[in-house]
């Protein structure tokens, strides 16, 4: 099999913009679609702000990693920090989490695709086609993938601006956004908080690709901007949903954000939502490709790291991800179960990794600093 260099690095361009775009796009991946149905009361908007601040804390820890010389050294950096055995344990632990994330986002997106665009086509086809394209994307290697995020950002950010008309509807009333502070005893919405925190997760995976991000000291600035944009986007879409549906009707809708798209119209297209859903695939395809590359990278860490990367290795990684995703979609993604089990699982897993991974790295850096001094 022909040797390909999936993980080589040639350019030395220092740009925190990639970290910014990556953080933002990964944070806006899936929960953007379902979150409005979880944050049904106006006062829950504050949860977005609160969890945005909590997310900032995790990003602060991440930025500490980027500021160390280890981040720019790639494998050697990790080896210095965790040791060879530590790397293997981390790689092994990351594999199921990556597979879960890939499965969850691809099945969720496939379901939306099936429900709104192609009801007659099996959901599994909506998983297979994007997977093939994602593998093609991943074929260009990590360096190209990191750069490609600029196009993904430009290709998807415009979608939000189409929701502006929901703020301009005459029947809208500012009272729809009250009360911002709950009146009376409200049930503790810890699950909503967890969901919001989980929705901000994803940037922790940037640790794995920090070598290609050309880390620098100003990284916290870019991560903060990305986080702020994500908070803004979540607030924007949640407020639009509250104004459009109202807090009583909102809980009854599964995909409020997508349903809203159905009411967008243009002189040429009456169902703009089909274009929006299709365009949003940009983000999903990109993320799957990125995660497939990470799976391949992690599996190489478990085996022989010194051998060349191969096309077959990448395809096997892609197939492994698909082999996990397709059975879940076929046999374990039942109506009701997907919300109560898979969403919960992803919510817990996402929150845990977002909190623990930066914390682990942060502790490791501190420990290393203490032992070397």
């Amino acid at each position, binding site marked *: 099999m022909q040797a390909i260099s999936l993980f080589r690095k040639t350019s030395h361009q220092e740009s925190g913009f990639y970290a910014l775009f990556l953080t933002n796009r990964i944070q806006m991946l899936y929960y953007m679609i379902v979150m409005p149905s979880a944050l049904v009361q106006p006062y829950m908007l504050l949860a977005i702000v609160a969890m945005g601040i909590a997310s900032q804390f995790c990003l602060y820890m991440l930025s500490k990693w980027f500021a160390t010389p280890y981040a720019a050294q790639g494998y050697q950096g990790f080896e210095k920090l965790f040791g060879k055995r530590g790397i293997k344990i981390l790689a092994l632990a990351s594999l199921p989490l990556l597979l879960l994330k890939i499965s969850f986002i691809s099945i969720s997106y496939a379901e939306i695709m099936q429900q709104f665009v192609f009801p007659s086509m099996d959901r599994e086809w909506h998983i297979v086609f994007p997977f093939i394209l994602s593998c093609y994307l991943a074929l260009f290697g990590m360096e190209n993938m990191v750069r490609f995020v600029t196009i993904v950002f430009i290709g998807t950010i415009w979608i939000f601006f189409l929701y502006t008309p929901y703020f301009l509807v005459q029947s809208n009333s500012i009272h729809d956004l009250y009360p911002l502070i709950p009146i009376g005893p409200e049930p503790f919405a810890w699950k909503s908080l967890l969901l919001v925190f989980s929705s901000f997760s994803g940037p922790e995976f940037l640790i794995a690709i920090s070598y290609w991000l050309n880390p620098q000291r100003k990284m916290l600035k870019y991560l903060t901007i990305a986080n702020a944009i994500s908070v803004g986007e979540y607030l924007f879409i949640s407020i639009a949903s509250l104004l459009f549906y109202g807090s009583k009707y909102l809980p009854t809708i599964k995909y409020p954000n997508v349903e809203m798209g159905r009411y967008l119209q243009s002189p040429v297209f009456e169902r703009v939502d089909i274009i929006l*859903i*299709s365009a949003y695939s940009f983000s999903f395809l990109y993320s799957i490709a990125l995660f497939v590359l990470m799976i391949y990278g992690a599996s190489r860490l478990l085996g022989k790291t010194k051998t060349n990367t191969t096309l077959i290795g990448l395809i096997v990684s892609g197939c492994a991800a698909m082999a996990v995703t397709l059975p879940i979609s076929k046999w374990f993604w039942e109506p009701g179960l997907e919300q109560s089990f898979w969403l919960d699982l992803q919510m817990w897993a996402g929150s845990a990794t977002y909190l623990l991974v930066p914390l682990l790295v942060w502790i490791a850096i501190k420990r290393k600093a203490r032992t070397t001094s």
Partner: protein
Amino acid sequence: MTTISLEALKQRLALIEDAEIIDRETTDGLRLTFIYLGTLIDQERLNESILVPLVRSFQSSVEKSLTTAKITRLSNLEQALQYLMKGSVLVHDSSSGRWQAIMLPNSLSRSIETSETETIMFGPKDSFSEQLEQNILLIRRRLPLTALKTERYSVGSLTQTTVVLMYIDGLINPEFVAVAKNKLSSIDFDMFLDSSHVAAFMEDHYHSIFPQYLQTDRPDSCAYSLGIGKLVIFVNNTPFALVAPITLFHLFQSPEDYINRWLVASFLRPLRYLSFLLSITLIPIYVALTTHHYQMLPLQILYVIIESRSKLPLSPFWEAFIILITLEIIKEASLRMPTKTSQNLGVIGGIVIGQAAVEAGFASKVLIVLAGISAISTFLVPNYLVTKSSLLLQFIFLILATYLGIPGILLGLVGMFAHLNGLTSLNQPYLAPVSPFYWRDWVDLFVRGPLHAMRIRPEALRPLNKYRISRRSK
């Protein structure tokens, strides 16, 4: 290496009808033999500047007799034949036994004409010709700099084509020059009859349908490229120069962009990107809508389409496929046919496609309108090679639209951008300054900013001198 002898030369020139071998004796008694190919050299200059002064000379050697001519001393037969085939006169001094070559190439060339491939309303009208020296002159007139370097290479074992690498030393990133030199030196092929042949061997990704070298016949365009830190490659006997490294966005820029008012240019440039997208997606969108997503259309438009398609026996894919293929046949035929008959072809094509196809029930009126818009859109892209590439893309998108509808088109776009993102020109990213992200270069990307705002050269090219203005006036 074989030593030069008259017998050996005669043997090599056997059966070459225009080979001339003449003997002359100078006033001083020097016996000289002149060997040349009559069709390759300027015979008038040979008589006036070489033969007459030499015969009348009282000097003891050719060098002393011809003080103004550029004389090269030859050491072996291969070298002598090389000079001979490039338009030199070989002079043999029998008394000293020396062999010398005097370049006297026939300056046969066409006059400088207007560019036909990149026509502009305002601005310089001159264009390159097949004459290499003339092309270099056109650039030197625009950039009278000693820093403008030219390096010559010879490629092609049969054609011995001269290739000239041109760049501004001290401005261009030396990495580009090193890569280009390396690529030029490693070319191994027999024939190079056009600059595109050289480009094919220098491209990083020869399977791609996107050109990785800009081919232009406009000296002003080349001079501008050199001035911002790119290099230009001239190929002898070709009126097109190669410019590198380029990005996809360079292919959408026209020299007129920098002549028009910046606001006008900024309006026209996005229009070109839009036309390119329309040219590859308009027909596929029609097929996607009529095959899978009728519900996307407003009722009034839906009525028009249903009415238009009501008597058609073909599926939207076959309807579009037949029309697109017919359109391409007509386009290709109009290029190959003699000028006088191509006008008739246009009329026939218009009637056949515009009227007869609709009446016969092969295509709907809506599709004819869309095919027309799509065909016109391709011509807005200034680069002819991109126009041709868009044709292939259109068919790929058509198939995707037929099977996967609008999501298929979006998947195709993602794939196309992924492919473009992986491309390089002279090892430099093809989608810069978007990917890699150089935000300062965006002033001349989707819009053309005012010239005053373009104070620095494109960051993506990493020039050695990044400022375009005097630092003191800044």
